[in-house]
């Protein structure tokens, strides 16, 4: 795939973004730890397995219903570490601030980061601040990295899906992406849209406590559930079958998607996870999820099959069938 300039599609989390990683990054930096492209790296140091992950956060607007960029930056990295099956412990924090940014806004964001760090039970242990001239950055960018410890006996990774596994989601889809979009564009919808940003590490602990043999954990952020499931199907060379009727979407979010021609399967989440668990453990894991505040609306949405390895199919509400492909580039609002 050839391109001369980076476009916003390269940041969409879809096929174009994957091509950027495959064409420019892996050839230079590929190694057995990086190349599986999990949410975080799994490292063994002195006999202890660690998960290590980094993420950079840019969002417009900085404040939105349900959260702000600071909370997102803490929760995003905590979740990436937790999706390795690890207990997140430490974060780094890098701030890139545009000249002229209001102190009041910065304090508000730092306060919410402090609350998020407390809720997740992690510490910020190193950091950096840069200020750039007006126009060189859009208000505020935040990078966080996180480290966590993987308990003995836990082995989760996107290549671990096995035929027969049940696929669980921890709650409704597309809340974050549609909230940001409608805020950014000044669209208002009946019923409140709120970002779902949340740290999922405590939820993961509950789940691993009832089933240490969880095969895959992923948080479907950019690219949404549809893209994440395709990645898992490809990395584990299994097929995935979903049931449309079981996919949870809040009515207000569904309405916003209908209006703009968006498919909630491809819209970002910031406080949801997908879990692939052995079928006989599905009920126990589901109950454990539903007992957690961030898993109240958890449900089983599909299964892993032998057929069509690398592909995701969905049984529609009316009993038909369709393929669920990976997102290509950013979804763009349609004309009519």
């Amino acid at each position, binding site marked *: 795939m050839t391109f001369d300039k980076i476009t916003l599609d390269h940041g969409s989390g879809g096929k174009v973004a994957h*091509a950027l990683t495959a064409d420019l990054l892996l050839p230079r930096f590929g190694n057995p730890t990086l190349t599986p492209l999990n949410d975080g790296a799994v490292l063994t140091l002195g006999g202890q397995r660690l998960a290590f992950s980094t993420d950079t956060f840019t969002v417009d607007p900085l404040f939105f219903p349900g959260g702000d960029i600071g909370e997102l930056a803490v929760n995003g990295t905590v979740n990436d570490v937790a999706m390795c099956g690890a207990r997140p412990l430490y974060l780094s924090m890098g701030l890139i601030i545009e000249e002229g940014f209001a102190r009041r806004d910065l304090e508000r964001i730092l306060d919410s980061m402090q609350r998020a760090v407390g809720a997740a039970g992690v510490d910020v242990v190193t950091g950096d601040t840069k200020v750039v001239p007006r126009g060189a950055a859009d208000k505020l960018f935040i990078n966080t990295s996180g480290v966590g410890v993987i308990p003995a006996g836990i082995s989760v990774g996107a290549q671990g899906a096995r035929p027969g596994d049940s696929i669980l989601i921890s709650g409704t889809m597309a809340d974050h992406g549609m909230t940001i979009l409608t805020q950014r564009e000044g669209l208002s919808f009946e019923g409140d849209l709120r970002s779902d940003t949340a740290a999922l590490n405590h939820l993961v602990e509950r789940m691993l406590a009832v089933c240490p043999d969880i095969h895959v954990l992923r948080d479907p952020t950019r690219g949404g559930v549809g893209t994440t499931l395709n990645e898992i199907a490809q990395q584990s060379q299994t097929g995935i079958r979903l049931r449309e009727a079981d996919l949870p979407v809040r009515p207000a979010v569904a309405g916003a998607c209908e209006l703009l021609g968006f498919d909630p399967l491809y819209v970002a989440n910031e406080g949801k996870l997908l879990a692939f668990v052995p079928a006989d453990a599905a009920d126990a894991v589901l109950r454990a999820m539903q007992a957690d505040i961030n898993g109240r609306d958890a449900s089983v949405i599909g299964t892993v099959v032998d057929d069509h390895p690398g*592909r995701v199919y*969905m049984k529609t509400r*009316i009993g*038909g069938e369709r393929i669920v492909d990976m997102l290509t580039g950013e979804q*763009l609002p*349609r004309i009519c």
Partner: protein
Amino acid sequence: MIERNFEAFRDPDLAKGLITQIRSRSRRPIRLMEVCGTHTVALFRSGVRSLLPDTIGLLSGPGCPVCVTAQGEIDAFVALAQRPDTIVATFGDLLRVPGSGTTLQAAKGEGADVRIVYSAVDALAFARDNPEKEVVFLGVGFETTAPTIAAAIFSARQSGCMNFSIAAAHKTVPAALGALLGRSDLKVDGLLLPGHVSVMIGVAGYRPFFNASQMPSAITGFEPTDLLMGIAELVTQIETGRPRLYNAYPRAVTEGGNPKAMALLEQVFAPADVPWRGLGRIPASGLVLRPEFERFDAFRRFDIQIVDAPEPKGCACGQILTGTRIPPECPLYKTTCSPIHPVGPCMVSSEGTCAAYYRYHQASS
């Protein structure tokens, strides 16, 4: 609330009943054209296609606004975006459509100020907030979007907003249907008529076309059972040999449509002969600004000509838009043309036929 009303039209039992009805009535092989791009996507997404008997073939028609925008019009849009001190405001799905040279998205990457909006009213707000810039709204779409653009022009005139203009490339659906059915290479037995456009023009908007063609026609909504009702109606019309213009979307479409919106449209726009991708120039099938509004005409204000430009070599968008070929029959499909690097607009728009096939039609590949 919109979303609550949807549920009744996704009822699996109702759908099952309609599918049984279609299966039992459909005997001879027929080809139905869904005129509207939203239908194309809905037929795939809902799984309706996978449930129809082999006797029913579905073809996509010219009802995707981005897809029928002519190459020369795209070139003119890009030229507008490349002007200094200009903000071009556009619906999102035009961004990636390739013109002869480049796309709006690439122009944006090179510094052009291109912004996505959801209505012309948003573009008018940019004009008010940026008095030192020229703000041009790219007016693409059918009778569904044109009235809102007419409203924005009225508002601009009233408020004396001098830095706002429209690059009008609107098209009207009934004129295109007439031209389409006049083609000798078209093999279509019935039409699923577009729900959104029909809300505006009403059932009456199709009468002249139907009376002339006697083509079995059903105005159809977008939920699974809407689609099935439209298809069931067409199967019945064709099997009984009794064509009619039927409104299978009565909860949204009336006989007269939306007269207020249409009156607004007619006050601001006049019919014109315009080029359609794949269909060529069709008499009275486009909308241009009437002389009393011509100061809002971006092409005139900035002296940009729409030049007829050849369509990309090998691209079958033209035949696909007229239902004479399906995407897998195009030599470029999935080879040099994909949603990442689209050659023709049918691959660009999320509602384009090729993009819909690319995303949903992989079962047999």
